[in-house]
């Protein structure tokens, strides 16, 4: 069998997508479907005096209107993070007596078509009294109006973590550098917004929810609890999901509400989020303002790092809102030996949409802090930024490497990635060219980031709801292979990469494998796709399930071949009495179903053979007339893989920019990224993940920012105002790779979904700062707009 793993295998999910025949939630049509639209708060903080729905109820096509009092029995929107002393506001699916952010759902209008529902929104009269608003996170921490009077202040939690005596470390340093660092709020903007279709069968008392989510099983558990339906009567299906980036790693008010409304009306109901709703009421990412202090010796050795950060949580806690800054704390050692590290988090309520996991989820913030701090050290000491990084790396033979944030990095060779990136870009020459350019008055900047990230989330000890992943692999009577994965991919391509793993391990053709995911009615319980975990944890579950399946097949093969297990070898899809020399033989043919009478299973022709294909074993296992004693019929295995550690991918990104002295325009000249994500299953998919991640980073560095005004009004409420990177904004990305396998799983894979968003931002900002070094610039806040640069150049 040809080896699929490691090859650029074209995606098996693509034909339906490129033909326009795939089904996202809104593409699923059920007869008699009613449509839901939401009245959302236009105030950031207000008391609701009254809601008049009478006119809306009489509008053409309107079937029902629900407000907060109707849904008081639905449980609160859940937060899964349990931090000590955490204050948790009561987050109802429709606002009760107050609203706390612009976009908060107040009423649900149900109508016969989406246009009628939208029309009726304008007829719902909400009488508000506006209340004082808290927008700025540092102001929220220091006092000002209190959002939740019961809590006494706006601080949701405080947390301090880290190892080593940071005060002593900084006191003993030759230099201590300080910098305020802003990680602006971002909108994830999956191209498909959220959407829910719910159908309740009153006779069977069964509810099905189609939702654009990353976590069908976790959502099933939570929604069942919220609306009081037994979990085994609720089925969650994620059809095609048009991107997530963490924004669909959540349980939202609308998901529970749609299920509940369908139960009230005994009809299918659908809600498809509009883009304005998406930017208002789907979680935001980042939203931290922090103060870093880094200590170093005169020779560049880092002695300690402290980060005091104010996390802008928003008005409510969504599923993982308070946990995101803790991930920042974990990764503050970056790819360096830092003997003492301390993070002090102050999580604050503001009158804004919640922040939560957005691609990278707390780790881009950490990397940005550490990498910017390393640049400050380099500038202070006059050492090349690449060299100050190199001299603080743990060596390749120092892994597993323990950090002062309490982690044990699994494996790494940071210097190899740095060397490769420097070679690819011609670093030494580039610095000479920069010197020459500066002499000519040109503003050429070089930025570098040597990042490490935490992936394959994660051991269950470190996760709120289990960190394992599940897989079932079965070979059907006709020899087709079905893989059920608890991971729920949404664009990453695991239908292909998991089939690659299965094809190699079973010695069958890739096209005989179907990977099924995202349906709690079919797939065993799983956790989901997020935190760069699907392949490292979910792929490993597939791999080990196959080993279990093969073990059983091996016993059956020995029985049929009338020999003992030790005398049977498996290779190239065949079980044989003697070990086959040719392990790359053509794949085992599928049992010729055509030879069997219509409607009957083919007879296993096993008599007198010295070799059997795994498909022949599968058929024999289902016919079950020739099985060893005490062997269960069928050929299927399930495995729940619990990882013992996270994985830690790493790499080096180097960026070259040139700034236009007249306009402040930032032009990319080169972008080199060397990423090490462990063993690679499909290089084409890995490249795609890196490209996408880097470009989201570039969006944060240069364009993207969720802006609320001082009244808490969302200024960037549509794609007219929220600037996403477009094709013309992107430099050609030159990718390289090193491959350091992870010892954490048998595949040796680490994860790559978030690498680009973690490694790229500091390199891009670093390059701009470097270009502006002649103007005395040492740091700039994101997004770095041409206007910012122009003001520096012109001194205005």
């Amino acid at each position: 069998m040809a080896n699929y793993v490691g090859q650029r295998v074209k995606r098996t999910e693509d034909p339906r997508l490129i033909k326009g025949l795939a089904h996202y939630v809104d593409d699923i049509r059920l007869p008699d479907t009613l449509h839901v639209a939401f009245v959302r708060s236009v105030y950031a903080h207000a008391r609701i005096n009254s809601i008049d729905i009478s006119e809306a109820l009489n509008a053409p096509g309107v079937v029902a209107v629900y407000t907060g009092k109707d849904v008081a029995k639905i449980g609160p929107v859940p937060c899964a993070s349990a931090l000590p002393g955490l204050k948790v506001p009561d987050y109802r699916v429709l606002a009760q007596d107050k609203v706390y952010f612009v976009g908060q759902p107040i009423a649900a209008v149900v109508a016969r078509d989406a246009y009628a529902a939208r029309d009726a929104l304008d007829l719902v009269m909400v009488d508000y009294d506006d209340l004082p608003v808290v927008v700025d996170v540092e102001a929220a921490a220091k006092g000002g109006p209190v959002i939740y009077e019961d809590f006494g202040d706006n601080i949701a939690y405080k947390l301090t973590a880290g190892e080593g005596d940071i005060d002593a470390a900084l006191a003993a340093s030759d230099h201590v550098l300080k910098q305020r660092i802003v990680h602006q709020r971002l909108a994830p903007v999956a191209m498909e917004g959220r959407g829910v279709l719910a159908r309740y069968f009153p006779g069977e008392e069964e509810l099905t929810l189609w939702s654009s989510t990353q976590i069908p099983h976790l959502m099933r558990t939570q929604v069942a609890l919220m609306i009081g339906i037994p979990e085994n009567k609720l089925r969650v299906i994620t059809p095609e999901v048009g991107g997530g980036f963490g924004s669909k790693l959540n349980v939202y008010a609308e998901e529970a509400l749609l299920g509940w409304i369908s139960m009230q009306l005994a009809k299918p109901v659908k809600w498809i989020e509009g883009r304005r709703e998406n930017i208002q009421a789907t979680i935001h990412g980042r939203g931290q303002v922090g103060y870093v202090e880094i200590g170093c010796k005169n020779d560049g050795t880092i002695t300690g790092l402290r980060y005091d950060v104010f996390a802008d949580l928003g008005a409510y806690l969504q599923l993982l809102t308070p946990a995101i800054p803790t991930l920042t704390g974990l990764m503050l050692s970056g790819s360096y030996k830092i003997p003492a590290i301390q993070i002090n988090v102050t999580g604050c309520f503001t009158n804004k949409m919640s922040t939560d996991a957005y691609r990278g989820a707390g780790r881009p913030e950490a990397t940005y802090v550490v990498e910017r701090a390393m640049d400050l050290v380099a500038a202070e000491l006059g050492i090349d930024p690449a060299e100050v990084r190199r001299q603080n790396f743990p060596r390749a033979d120092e892994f597993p490497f323990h950090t002062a944030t309490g982690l044990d990095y699994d494996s790494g060779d940071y210097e190899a990635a740095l060397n490769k990136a420097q070679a690819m870009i011609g670093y030494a020459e580039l610095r000479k060219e920069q010197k020459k350019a500066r002499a000519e008055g040109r503003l050429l900047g070089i930025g570098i980031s040597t990042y490490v990230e935490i992936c394959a989330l994660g051991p269950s000890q470190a996760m709120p709801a289990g960190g394992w992943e599940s897989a079932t692999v079965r070979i059907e009577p006709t020899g087709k292979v079905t893989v059920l994965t608890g991971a729920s991919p949404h664009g990453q391509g695991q239908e292909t990469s998991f089939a690659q793993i299965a094809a190699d391990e079973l010695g069958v053709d890739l096209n005989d494998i179907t990977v099924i995911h995202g349906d709690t009615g079919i797939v065993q319980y799983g956790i989901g796709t997020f935190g760069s975990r699907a392949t490292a944890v979910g792929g490993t579950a597939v791999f080990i399930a196959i080993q279990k399946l093969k073990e059983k097949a091996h016993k059956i093969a020995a029985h049929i071949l009338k020999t003992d297990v030790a005398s049977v070898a498996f290779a190239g899809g065949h079980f044989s009495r003697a070990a086959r020399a040719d392990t790359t033989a053509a794949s085992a043919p599928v049992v010729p179903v055509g030879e069997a009478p219509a409607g009957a299973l083919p007879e296993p022709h096993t008599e007198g053979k010295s070799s059997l294909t795994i498909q022949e074993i599968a058929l024999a296992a289902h016919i079950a007339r020739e099985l060893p004693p005490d062997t269960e019929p069928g050929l299927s295995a399930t495995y729940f893989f619990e990882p013992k550690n996270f994985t830690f991918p790493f790499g080096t990104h180097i960026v070259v920019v040139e700034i236009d002295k007249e306009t402040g325009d930032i032009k990319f000249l080169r972008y080199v990224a060397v990423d090490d994500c462990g063993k690679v299953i499909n290089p084409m998919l890995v490249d795609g993940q890196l490209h996408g991640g880097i470009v989201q980073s570039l969006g944060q560095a240069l364009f993207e920012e969720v802006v609320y005004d001082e009244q808490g009004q969302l200024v960037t409420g549509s794609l007219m105002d929220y600037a996403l990177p477009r094709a013309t904004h992107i430099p050609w990305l030159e990718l390289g790779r090193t491959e350091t396998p992870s010892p954490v799983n048998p595949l040796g894979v680490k994860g790559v979904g978030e690498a680009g968003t973690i490694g790229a931002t500091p390199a891009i900002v670093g390059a701009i700062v470097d270009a502006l070094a002649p103007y005395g610039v040492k740091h700039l806040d994101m997004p770095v707009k041409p206007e910012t640069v122009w003001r520096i150049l012109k001194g205005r």
Partner: protein
Amino acid sequence: MKRAISMSVNGVSQQHEVEPRLLLVHYLRDVLGLTGTHIGCETSLCGACTIFVDGQAVKSCTMLAVQADGAEVTTIEGMMKDGQLHPMQTGFWECHGLQCGYCTPGMIMAATQLIDRNANPSRAEIRHGLEGNLCRCTGYQHIVEAVEHAAKNSRG
């Protein structure tokens, strides 16, 4: 008051009475059941809803169905010919020009128009030609390669 409209969609003649305010994309998706055309922003900024109207790539989320009365419309579902993928569809598959696939139909339509107008576009020209279409997954590089692939195969 409803208006009678007729148009050819993917070579099939269609006649319906629709509300004058019905958007063309909703006509295609909800009346004709052609759900391959997606809606991504409702403000003509993302291009997910791109289709051909009388041979011109248009964003169908900001055009009314009644404005397409009498027109010849092609959607992503009409791109295959004789059971064969359009070279642009093949290009996207070969070069991994899609991940979640949501922007893909609109991207394929816009890119097809691009190479119809310029059979041998440079990478900069491809990027410029796709500026009206947003993709959040791919970072565009594989899309640029997909368009190059399709352009090469279309030239023969």
